[in-house]
C-alpha cells in the first residue's frame, strides 16, 4: 500500500492562488458575466416560485403543458435561453413577474378632498350644488370654498 506524505502545517496552502482559474476569470467580460447572472437569477426566481407553491418539477411541467420533466430541469439550470412565449406562460402559471415591459410611468392619482367650511350657516346643500355648477363643475376642487353647509 502506497504511503502518502502527511502535512500538518496549519497554514499549508493558505496562500494558494490558482493560476488557471485566474486566467479563465480574466477572459470573462462584464457583459458575459452579466448575461450569465441574469439567466441564473431568472432560474432561481422560477424555482423559488415553484417551491412557494409546493410544486415539484413534475407538477410544474404538467401545469406548463410540458411532457418532458427534463426540460424543466434545463429551465431551472441557469443555462437555458427562454423564448418570450415561455416566460409569459411561466409568469401566468406561477403568478410572478419575469418580464417588465412598461414604457411609461403611470401618472400618480391625486385625490383632492373638497373641503367646505364657513361660519355662514344659511347655505343649504342646494346652494352649494348651485355654486359648484356656477363655478364650472370639477374646477371648483382647486379652489377653497369658505362656506359651511349644514346638513
Amino acid at each position, binding site marked *: 500500500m502506497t504511503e502518502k506524505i502527511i*502535512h500538518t502545517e496549519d497554514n499549508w496552502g493558505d496562500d494558494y492562488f*490558482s493560476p488557471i482559474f485566474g486566467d*479563465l476569470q480574466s477572459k470573462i467580460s462584464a457583459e458575459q458575466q452579466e448575461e450569465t447572472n441574469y439567466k441564473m437569477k431568472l432560474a432561481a426566481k422560477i424555482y423559488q416560485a415553484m417551491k412557494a407553491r409546493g410544486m415539484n418539477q413534475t407538477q410544474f411541467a404538467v401545469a406548463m403543458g410540458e411532457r418532458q420533466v427534463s426540460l424543466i430541469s434545463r429551465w431551472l*439550470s*441557469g443555462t437555458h435561453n427562454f423564448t418570450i412565449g415561455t416566460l409569459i406562460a411561466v409568469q401566468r402559471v406561477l403568478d410572478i413577474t419575469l418580464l417588465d415591459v412598461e414604457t411609461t410611468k403611470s401618472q400618480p392619482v391625486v385625490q383632492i378632498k373638497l373641503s367646505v367650511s364657513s361660519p355662514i350657516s344659511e347655505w343649504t346643500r342646494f346652494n352649494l350644488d348651485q355654486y359648484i355648477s356656477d363655478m364650472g363643475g370639477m374646477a371648483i376642487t382647486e379652489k377653497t370654498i369658505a362656506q359651511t353647509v349644514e346638513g
Partner: protein
Amino acid sequence: MASLYTVMFELAEGEITTKLDQFFQKYRDRYPEELMDIVRRLNSLGKETGCTENFFKLDEGLNPDDMVCALYDVPEINLRLYCIRLDDQLTILGDGGPKATRTWQEDANLKKEVHAMMDVSMVLRTKLKNGTIKRSANGLRLDGDLWITKT
C-alpha cells in the same frame, strides 16, 4: 451568496494543485466555451444566487446521504463537474469530465472522480458530526481540521 471550496493536494515534488484546477487544465482546450460557461456560473453561484438545488443534478453518489452531485451539464456536451453540495451556502467542487455513457459507472474517469468525492464526503460528514469541523455562524465557512489524509 455562497462559498465554493475545492480539494487541495500535493503532487510529486511538492507542487500544490486542486481538484478544480485539474478539471480546468484537462478540459479548457477541448471544451473552451463550456468551461467558460461553468466558470461564469460558478461566479453567479458564489456572488448572486447561492447553491440552490436547481443548479445541480443531485444524488450522483452511491450513498443517499453523501451529498455528491454534479453542476448541471448542458445536454449537448455533458461536461460534468462533480461536487459535494452541503446546502445553498456551501459547495465543495471536485473534478469530472465529459459523460458519454449512460451512467458514470461505465466511464473509468467519471467513476474515479465520483468515488473521490464520495471519499471526501465521508470524511467531511464524520468530522462535522464529531465536531472537528464546524460551520461558521453565517454558514459560509468550514472551520477546524480540514485535512483529509489517505494512506
